[in-house]
């Protein structure tokens, strides 16, 4: 099995090389039988956020498989006309498996995948699949339920500041999961949301954090990339949570815990599947139990009862006894969305575009 898949790889490479005779592959750098894995990034690897974590995942592949794989990445690829060309170029230059790591790459990925049926594609955070296109994402909202619980117990002002990037379902879902968990332990607590309309601009994130603290928030959480908000929290003596990676280096006291995007296990598993010849198109939406949504441990200031409550939620999510979107859930207007005993299904979660009760502000319609 292993042997044949490598053979077919080599043969396909020959075919592609013959088809575009002028295609040049620098022979010195690449060994012919290594599996080639390509990554398309939306930001620079130095963003210390979303793209940075995907690149850590890429490095994990290299570490795990050594000479058996070769990885390539293209960074800061705009989600416009350029995406299709970059993805196609990766496919036509002998890459066997291509990860496209931002929502905006969905349509270009699907389009290129149709032209390259032998290449396997993995698109992050989208909803369109094909015979050779998988989708994957993390249930980061599960992590938000854990930190929401902690925030609800630890806030003294009953005001939580939430710095958000863009009003997309992923972010709205996080805000709602956080709010629901928070109000389970503290019905009086409320969330203030500020949209900064950027994924990373450390200055603006810091401004938003200060604004929220000035409005009475004593816990800050964020759905933007940089550690700037946590730095402000540290300086102003309030608390916060790390986003995407462990940010305790930037806020040793203020970081209560962090929600870490850990793509390593998934990336390794998918590469292994291609090597084994068992790769199939799948839809992965993995949560805490898979390790894709991870925690680096608690900060030194977290009291034991908060730790215990957070652990109950975390373990409950893993064993299925706790669902972040279990009814009863009301929307901002106080209307019942789902009754007690039921949970919102994945389809509803995927397209979530309303706030639940307890969140202040409005979403664009």
């Amino acid at each position, binding site marked *: 099995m292993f042997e044949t898949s490598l053979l077919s790889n080599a043969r396909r490479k020959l075919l592609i090389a013959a088809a575009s005779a002028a295609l040049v592959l620098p022979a010195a750098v690449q060994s012919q039988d290594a599996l080639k894995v390509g990554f398309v990034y939306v930001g620079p690897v*130095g963003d210390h956020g979303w793209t940075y974590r995907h690149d850590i995942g890429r490095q994990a592949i290299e570490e795990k498989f050594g000479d058996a794989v070769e990885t390539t990445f293209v960074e800061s690829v705009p989600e416009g006309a350029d995406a299709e060309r970059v993805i196609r170029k990766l496919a036509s230059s002998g890459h066997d498996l291509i990860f496209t790591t931002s929502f905006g790459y969905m349509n270009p990925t699907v389009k290129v995948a149709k032209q390259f049926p032998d290449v396997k594609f993995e698109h992050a955070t989208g909803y369109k699949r094909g015979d050779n296109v998988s989708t994957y994402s993390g249930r980061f909202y599960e992590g938000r339920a854990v930190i929401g619980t902690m925030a609800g117990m630890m806030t003294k002002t009953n005001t939580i500041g939430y710095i958000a990037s863009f009003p997309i379902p992923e972010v709205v879902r996080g805000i709602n999961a956080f709010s629901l968990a928070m109000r389970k332990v503290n019905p009086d607590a409320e969330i*203030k*949301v*500020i949209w900064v*309309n950027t994924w990373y601009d450390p200055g603006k994130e810091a401004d938003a954090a200060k604004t929220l603290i000035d*409005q009475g928030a004593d816990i800050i959480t964020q759905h933007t990339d*940089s550690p700037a908000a946590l730095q402000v929290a540290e300086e102003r003596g309030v608390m916060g949570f790390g986003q995407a990676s462990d940010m305790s280096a*930037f806020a040793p006291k203020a970081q209560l815990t962090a929600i870490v995007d850990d793509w390593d296990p998934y990336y390794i598993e998918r590469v292994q599947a291609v090597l084994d010849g068992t790769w199939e198109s799948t839809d992965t939406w993995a949560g805490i139990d898979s390790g894709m949504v991870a925690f680096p441990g608690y900060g030194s200031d977290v009291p034991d009862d908060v730790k215990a409550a957070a652990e109950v939620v975390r373990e409950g999510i893993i064993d299925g006894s706790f669902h972040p979107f279990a009814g009863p859930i009301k929307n901002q207007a106080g209307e019942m969305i789902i009754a007690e005993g039921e949970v919102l299904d994945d389809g509803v979660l995927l397209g979530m575009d309303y706030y639940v009760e307890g969140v202040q502000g*409005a979403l*664009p319609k």
Partner: protein
Amino acid sequence: MSDPSTSVLIALTVITAATPLVFAAIGELITERSGVLNLGVEGMMLVGAVSSFLCVHVYGSAPLALLVGMAGGMVMALLFGFLTLSLQASQVATGLALTIFGTGLSALVGQSLIGVAYGGLPKLHIPVLSELPTVGPLLFQHDVLVYASWLLIPAVSIFLKRSRAGLVLRAVGDSHDSAHALGYRVIRVRYFATLFGGACSGLAGAYLSMAYAPMWVENMTAGRGWIALALVVFAVWQPGWVLFGAYLFGGITILQLHGQGIGINVPSQLMSMLPYVTTIIVLVLISLNQGRVRRNAPAAIGQAFHPTT
């Protein structure tokens, strides 16, 4: 010392947001008043930001890091000056190319700095004065760069209006041919003005990576260099108005964040338009006084000069 009131806290946030704009814009103002248009502010800021952060990470000395940040901006400005003043390349295009170059260079230099933490520039509390209620925290508890930005404005203003060198600078910017005929060294003056602009942009960048959000991430200026360029036009090339423009822009930015925080029911994208729209409206009001615009706009801006006789 009592806790500062909310309005003071809001003002402090505005000061932080405006300070990099003040530095970058005042530097560009001097550059432009000598007749040179350098659109590479963003690139110079990024190089300033990364070089000062690298320096403080390696040597641990904040004063040295600020100097290195300035030097980083100046090296970029020197490159720009060499191309446009010595080799007469197009200023507009070279400035834009400088931004592309600076973005790449800073990312390259900063590769090892991702995830590195720094505590931020220390705050210098001015003795006695910083203890005053309201005024103390508002004016006398800042880091050195904020004070520097405040002192820079009157200094540049006096330099332009009262000093001989400032007179020469303005003469060169208004008509290089007449200035040359009067015996002034046009190219040399423009080099100095360009380097000053680079030093200020470098400091603006250093403020971002050392004080505003003490860290290095790629592209962390996030367009502030462009805002600074717009502010010079907005200020009609007058130092005092640079300060006003930067605080107005910063102020509206922070106020719209507060508006969101208290739950104003307007989509955030529309709220975020406010600083830009306000800037346009105020510019229109300022432009109504055409005499002022004509008096201050450097007439020879963007034009190449080569002494022919």
